[in-house]
């Protein structure tokens, strides 16, 4: 750990006196030392709260903001203190890190805010001490997951307008996956749903016995045999629709191989295949048995409903995720069944006219008893049989009850996750609408300002003066800035409507809401446009204008949240940046926990130190004695070695 290293270094160097008599060659001269070795108290003023500490304390970690010369940027000569305009509560933890060497994670603070503070002060998140590390990681992961869900929701439930230039395929696929995006897709969705229902009901009704109008023949027939043509027509219609749908999906799928392998497409295939097989199979007695079996598969059409029902999908997903629990259940049940069946068989063997004719025959009894069904078709008659039968039913309850709570909790968790996602999606729409409104307000203000000729400035009338007065200094400067930008790019700002009119399919609405932090991001969805540069520059300018313009408006927080969401979670830490030049010299410190540092201590006599520099960067990959921090410390560099070891 760097603190330990820094403090004990003088001792280690002093102990090197022990090598002196053994040295066969002259040792290199010591590095120059800073003049002031005295200790002084520094005052760090964080938003009004004063923290005082020894300079040495901060110097322990020279790779951070407070430990390096970077803090001089924050030095206020008038008051003689270092002023930081940050959260003083968080700073307490940062300072404690310098003092104790352990970074603790505050429980009541938001983990994102904590991360930001760490990034500001140049501390790597890995420095969080073991006591708090687990919780820190958990909370971070939770946050990241939630943000990822947000992003996914944003992308999935996207704005109603597709990027221009998307092919028919893409549009079709979108329509299939998100039926609510267009009316046609919705209609298609409901039509297929209706036909699935019709098909399933027809299958069911087919088998009901219905009495014909004439009593000859008096025996009852299933409806399917009475009205074969009607049912056949209905079946054909459904299968045609299903086939059409399947082929369309196949055509629209972005990755056909993946689509073919997906579960839903398999269900589709299984749903329509029996019909076609039935068409081509001749109606003779041999095959008709098999043909009848095939018709059973028509019931799989009911699974097509899972595209329409989210709950069904969740159920399927739950079962998949609980596969191990289900497997355990099955396995333990099988074991119990075999054991009890054997026991019952031998217990009842003596009785004549017993139902327990063989062990497999006893399986049925065991299953019925263990699941507490108790049909009563097989009943033990001996006393031993009854005893074991009761044990069997008791144990059955236990065995089945065990994995069930696990499955239930899994289902509940996934269900709630979905609920949350849906709710967030709904809220997202409202939020986006509000943001869009705010932004257009700003742009309109700017455009209004331009229209009023306020930018010309040369003059004049009272109306202009009035208009100017109505805006705050901030707005003035802001508008001036936008104007400068316009002049620079030789393009002008317009509002959304005009722009979307001019560009047709491209809409700014969805895009600007996605534009990230105020710093412009020139490359983005604009690259989808094959239009010429001026247009792209214009869009860029507008996006910039919108994003910068919106900052000045009220719903700044909304935008900030949106921007904050998109900002990459990984903090840019100084340590990681500083570590780069040293990595090349790092011979065996591979683990991410270690950052090697070079310290100028005289190399042991076995080396051949012939450079005048104290630290021998080492020809041919040999590193001078390196210091490794056993716990993720930042590298401990003595100031004098910084210049030397910068290769």
């Amino acid at each position, binding site marked *: 750990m760097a603190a330990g290293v820094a*403090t004990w270094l003088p001792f280690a160097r002093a102990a090197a*006196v022990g090598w002196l008599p053994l040295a066969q060659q002259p040792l290199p001269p010591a590095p120059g030392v800073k003049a002031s070795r005295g200790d002084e108290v520094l005052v760090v003023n964080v938003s009004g709260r004063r923290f005082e500490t020894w300079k040495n304390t901060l110097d322990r970690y020279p790779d951070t903001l407070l430990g390096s010369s970077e803090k001089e940027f924050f030095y206020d000569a008038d008051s003689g203190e270092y002023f930081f305009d940050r959260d003083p509560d968080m700073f307490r933890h940062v300072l404690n890190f310098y003092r104790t*060497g352990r970074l603790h994670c505050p429980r009541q603070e938001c983990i994102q805010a904590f991360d930001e503070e760490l990034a500001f002060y140049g501390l790597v998140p890995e420095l969080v001490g073991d006591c708090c590390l687990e919780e820190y990681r958990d909370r971070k992961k939770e946050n990241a997951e939630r943000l990822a869900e947000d992003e996914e929701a944003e992308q999935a439930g996207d704005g109603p307008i597709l990027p221009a230039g998307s092919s028919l395929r893409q549009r079709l696929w979108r329509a299939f996956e998100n039926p609510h995006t267009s009316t046609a897709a919705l209609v298609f969705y409901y039509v297929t749903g209706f036909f699935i229902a019709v098909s399933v009901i027809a299958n069911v009704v087919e088998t009901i016995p219905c009495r014909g109008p004439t009593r000859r023949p008096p025996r009852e027939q299933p409806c399917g045999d009475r009205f074969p043509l009607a049912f056949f027509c209905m079946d054909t219609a459904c299968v045609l629709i299903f086939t059409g749908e399947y082929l369309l999906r196949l055509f629209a799928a972005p990755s056909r191989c993946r689509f073919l392998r997906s579960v839903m497409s398999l269900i589709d295939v299984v749903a329509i295949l029996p019909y076609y097989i039935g068409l081509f199979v001749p109606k003779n007695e041999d095959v008709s048995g098999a043909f009848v079996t095939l018709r059973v598969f028509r019931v799989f059409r009911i699974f097509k409903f899972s595209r329409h029902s989210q709950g069904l999908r969740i159920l399927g997903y739950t079962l998949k995720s609980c596969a191990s629990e289900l497997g355990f259940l099955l396995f333990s049940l099988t074991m119990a069944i075999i054991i009890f069946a054997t026991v019952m068989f031998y217990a009842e063997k003596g009785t004549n006219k017993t139902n327990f004719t063989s062990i497999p025959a006893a399986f049925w009894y065991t299953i019925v008893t263990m699941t507490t069904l108790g049909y009563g078709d097989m009943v033990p008659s001996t006393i031993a049989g009854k005893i074991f039968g009761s044990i069997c039913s008791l144990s059955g309850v236990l065995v089945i009850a065990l994995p069930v709570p696990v499955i239930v909790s899994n289902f509940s968790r996934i269900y709630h996750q979905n609920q949350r996602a849906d709710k967030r999606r709904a809220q997202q729409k409202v939020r986006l609408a509000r943001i869009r409104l705010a932004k257009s307000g700003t742009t309109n203000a700017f455009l209004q300002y331009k229209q009023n000729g306020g930018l010309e400035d040369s003059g004049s009338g009272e109306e202009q003066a009035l208009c100017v007065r109505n805006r705050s200094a901030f707005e003035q400067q802001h508008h001036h800035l936008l104007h400068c930008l316009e002049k620079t790019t030789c393009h002008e700002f317009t509002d959304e409507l005009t722009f979307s009119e001019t560009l047709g399919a491209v809409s700014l609405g969805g895009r600007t809401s996605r534009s990230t932090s105020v710093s412009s991001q020139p490359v983005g969805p604009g690259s989808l446009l094959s239009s010429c540069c001026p247009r792209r520059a214009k869009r860029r300018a507008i996006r910039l204008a919108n994003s910068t313009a919106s900052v000045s408006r009220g719903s700044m927080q909304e935008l900030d949240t949106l921007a904050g969401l998109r900002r990459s979670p990984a903090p840019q830490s100084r340590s990681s940046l500083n570590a780069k030049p040293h990595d090349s010299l790092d011979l065996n410190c591979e683990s991410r926990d270690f950052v090697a540092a070079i310290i100028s201590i005289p190399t042991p006599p*076995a080396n051949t130190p012939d450079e005048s520099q104290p630290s021998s960067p*080492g020809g041919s*990959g*040999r590193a001078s*004695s390196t210091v490794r921090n056993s716990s993720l410390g930042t590298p401990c560099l003595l100031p004098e070695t910084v210049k030397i070891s910068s290769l």
Partner: protein
Amino acid sequence: MHDCARGFSLSPACCSLLENPTAVLPEDSVEDELEMATVRHRPEALELLEAQSKFTKKELQILYRGFKNECPSGVVNEETFKEIYSQFFPQGDSTTYAHFLFNAFDTDHNGAVSFEDFIKGLSILLRGTVQEKLNWAFNLYDINKDGYITKEEMLDIMKAIYDMMGKCTYPVLKEDAPRQHVETFFQKMDKNKDGVVTIDEFIESCQKDENIMRSMQLFENVI
């Protein structure tokens, strides 16, 4: 120092024995834990230390603050010592040398290095005369503290030093390098060729060696 506590998890980071400086560390870790909770070592008064050592008050203050921060209990025992030292030499194995060094610092041989021991040693190493430094070095090499450095003792020391280098050296470390080095050393130091080096031979030979004399000034400004 957190390596103190972390290095051996609750076990005697602090030694129990400050009341009884000559006692040996108890083997029972339960007792140690109990004692760790109650006993802390407090160093002598600042003025006394200043008189005893060659450091200024300010230097002592700085040193003690660092020491106390790393070892809140006030003492360092051998395990911690080894850990600390190994941080400086990650490539090789510095435990043997750290062991010898610990014995050299632990002048009263109570199994723990207190702040006084620490200061005493540093005072000699950094502010002492050449004679004192050579004396200290001799004490380091003389493992059994009998006043003579034998070839075996020297070999142990040499091997310990070479161990700190680790495997990756240039040129490649040979098996007999320590032994050869010991031979060279004895040739230089052992004037009467009786197979051992006494303190006088040692000091005399060192004072004759210009390199060594020059290097003695190297570490004056460490603090």
